């Protein structure tokens, strides 16, 4: 049995079971069946052999497997014990294991339910919005299994004081685990929230997480989003974070990739109204055979929007960093300011970097720029430190740490920042 027929039999078990999302799932399944998993020839998947990641032996959860709640406590990010927790297990939302503190401001329920209650209209207009930007089989495949997903709503004007942390558990103890979490978030007008996503592969086997999270940010809302990937070198990931921004909304996203096998992150910012603002930061600190591929899209559809983007990568050993940043400025989007920068350091002899910053501009009164660099550590800077009695190892660690701290500094939540900081410090001093 190959990967596709494996997926097919899993879908057959699901088919027609969802009351409210059957049509959506079916439509996505049709798309997936038509185009399948993209090959290297697909321009958007040029540097990432994603086809090889989908294995015939994949375990796919179609039912709610029982989740051992005690497992969660081992993986809670230090300092965030009081935060709101949402748990996904093998790609399916675990309502009972999740913990929501601020229930008056925050609604978390299964996507299946949301598609049938007072939020149905929202689900109807927003679910599947990312597909237009990623018309490929990977996104569609997630859509075909969407009924296991979750719906999150931050109510109008609510300021959520504690971060909302989404834990994705993949149980690989019985072999290759394939999970497909689906999340739809509504940040209503004037609301403020910090959403964190983190991934845990327990069981010691291989895994693939194919996630889609779609966020709609309302007027004057502020959304902070952090994606932390440190799963270990057997974990593959393909994830899309799609943000639809309404008037004067502000989105701030930080993506940190520290470990993994083949990792692909899509981040889309769609400026659907005037005066929207988005900030996108990324850090990929790679070793071993890790391949991390960050694709970002900023789609400026309306005037007076602003975007800022900085992605930094350090590649050690045989690892590969890929970056593709697209900025579209549509005809009506006059007075757009869009900046993008990608910086890479190649440490390992076998390491490589592929980058493609891309501008597509159809309006004339705009200021857009992008820049990217690939290089090694500055020898003059190293010499300066060495001349002051700092060992080569420490000097390198110091410089790399400084390089990474631009991104770290963007994380507002102190507890999470400190936690990531220790992860990075450990890594850099060990290897430098």
């Amino acid at each position: 049995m190959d990967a596709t027929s494996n997926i097919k039999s899993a879908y057959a078990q699901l088919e027609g079971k969802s009351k409210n999302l059957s049509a959506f799932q079916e439509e996505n399944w049709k798309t997936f069946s038509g185009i399948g998993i993209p090959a290297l020839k697909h321009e958007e998947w040029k540097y990432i052999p994603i086809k090889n990641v989908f294995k015939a032996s994949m375990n796919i959860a179609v039912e709610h497997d029982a989740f051992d709640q005690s497992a969660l406590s081992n993986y809670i990010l230090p300092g965030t014990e009081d935060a709101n927790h949402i748990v996904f297990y093998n790609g399916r939302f675990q309502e009972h294991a999740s913990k929501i503190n601020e229930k008056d401001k925050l609604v978390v329920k299964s996507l299946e339910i949301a598609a049938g209650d007072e939020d149905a209209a929202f689900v109807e207009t927003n679910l599947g919005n990312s597909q237009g930007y990623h018309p490929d089989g990977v996104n569609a495949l997630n859509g075909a299994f969407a009924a296991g997903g979750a719906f999150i709503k931050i109510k109008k004007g609510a300021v959520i004081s504690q971060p909302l942390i989404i834990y994705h558990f993949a149980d690989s103890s019985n072999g290759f685990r394939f999970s497909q979490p689906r999340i739809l978030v509504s940040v209503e007008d004037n609301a403020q929230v910090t959403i964190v996503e983190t991934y845990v592969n327990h069981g010691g086997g291989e895994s693939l997480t194919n996630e889609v999270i779609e966020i709609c940010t309302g007027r004057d809302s502020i959304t902070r989003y952090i994606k932390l990937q440190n799963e270990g070198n057997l974990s593959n990931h393909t994830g899309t974070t799609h943000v639809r921004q309404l008037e004067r909304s502000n989105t701030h996203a930080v993506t940190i990739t520290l470990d993994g096998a083949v990792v692909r992150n899509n981040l889309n910012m769609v400026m659907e109204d005037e005066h929207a603002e988005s900030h996108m930061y990324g850090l990929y600190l790679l070793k071993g055979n890790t391949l991390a591929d960050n694709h970002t899209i900023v789609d400026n559809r309306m005037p007076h929007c602003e975007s800022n983007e900085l992605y930094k990568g350090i590649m050690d050993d045989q690892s590969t960093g890929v970056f593709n940043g697209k900025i579209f400025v549509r005809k009506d989007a006059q007075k757009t300011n869009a900046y993008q920068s990608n910086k890479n350091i190649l440490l390992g002899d076998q390491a490589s970097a592929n980058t493609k910053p891309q501008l597509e501009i159809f309006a004339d009164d705009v200021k857009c720029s992008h820049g990217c660099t690939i290089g090694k550590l500055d020898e003059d800077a190293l010499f300066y430190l060495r001349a002051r009695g700092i060992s080569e190892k420490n000097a390198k660690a110091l410089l790399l740490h400084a390089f990474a701290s631009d991104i770290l500094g963007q994380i507002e939540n102190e507890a999470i920042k400190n936690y990531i900081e220790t992860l990075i410090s450990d890594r850099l001093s060990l290897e430098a």
Partner: protein
Amino acid sequence: MPEQQDDILEQITTSEYKYGFVTNIEADEAPKGLSEDTIRFISAKKNEPSWMLEYRLKAFQHWQKMEEPNWANVNYPKINFQDIIYYSAPKQKVAPKSLDEIDPELRNTFEKLGISLNEQKRLTGVAVDAVMDSISVATTFKEELSKVGVIFCSMSEAIQEHPELIKKYLGSVVPATDNYFTALNSAVFSDGSFCYIPKGVRCPMELSTYFRINAKNTGQFERTLIVAEEESYVSYLEGCTAPMRDENQLHAAVVELIAKEKAEIKYSTVQNWYPGDKEGKGGIYNFVTKRGICAGDHSKISWTQVETGSSVTWKYPSVILKGDYSIGEFYSVAVTNNLQQADTGTKMIHLGKNTRSRIVSKGISAGKSNNSYRGLVNVAKNASNARNFSQCDSLLLGDKCGAHTFPYIEVKNNTAIVEHEATTSKIGEDQIFYCNQRGMDTETAVALIINGFAKEVMNQLPMEFAVEAQKLLAISLEGSVG
């Protein structure tokens, strides 16, 4: 003032192609369509040796198996390859020995183009190998060049007279199987230029070719091959124009450059094919494969291009940096107006150690045109200490045009340093205001700013060309700027 600016932009969109005249010369044409017979016809017409015919047929067989590529950021109706005349030569009985023997009407054409052979010969000392509809009409200065051992002749002549060189180098940089259009070109190319600079020779003058598509419905498939032996230097200029026609015409040329140890080739292009009218009717499809190889250590290849014409431009002059310490350069100004589309850029393939490359690309879009920069910088595993710097700037005139940047950067060596930067902007109102304040009218100000924008590239052009290129820039952008 913004209104005034709009007026000038309006003028930009209304200025017309100034080289669109047709020369009435009887032409010797192949029948329409493409088949093995067409290729045999071309080969026979040119009295080619059998190995050349085989080369063509092999390329044709390969071409038949290939699919037309469609990944570029350009749109054009599908080309009917059976509706093209693959060979068209001005009728002439014997090969001319001096300029006086050339058909006066033909010479008028060149005079209208502003490259009067006489004048060029006298004033600039440029040797012109003028190619009209695929056949090399006159080669000047040939004798002077041969004194120092430089071979500069048409491709058909080279096939007859220097078969050993052609056999050795033709297709060595751009193999016939490279892509769809090179396969087509290899099968049906009708003429072109060949240039050979022997060891240690610095070519005493700038070499120049002027291409012009004249006859109706013809495709121009020329082939250029330049070989620079060790420690030699050559600067080569190429210019192109075509008459106004309602139909689209295909131009699928192949240019190959080979630079041996310590050799330098400087290749400059001013391309002004007919861009089509304001509604996008007619115009040339310019699908050209240009590639050079720095085969020896310390060699250098530099491409400079000023692209103002063609309805669709699709080309990437590339350099393979194989020799250690070799240098590749690419300087480009691409102007698109009305409904023109350009998808152009370069590829720098770093293979040798300590290789360097530099890319400067300036795109100017006006009207409803689309202008894309697409480039590749590739540093291979063993290319230690490779260095690249790329800069792509786009200028937008008007709110209906588009500017796009697609730089691919692939680095597999950790000692490489690669930098890329790109900006997109329009002419600032403050810039115009500054000029107005100093007594310049808005029109002159726009001209000044555009010239300044493109200056870095224009400076790379040889003197004789720089003047023409500036004129072209002015013509394609607006009537009175210049």
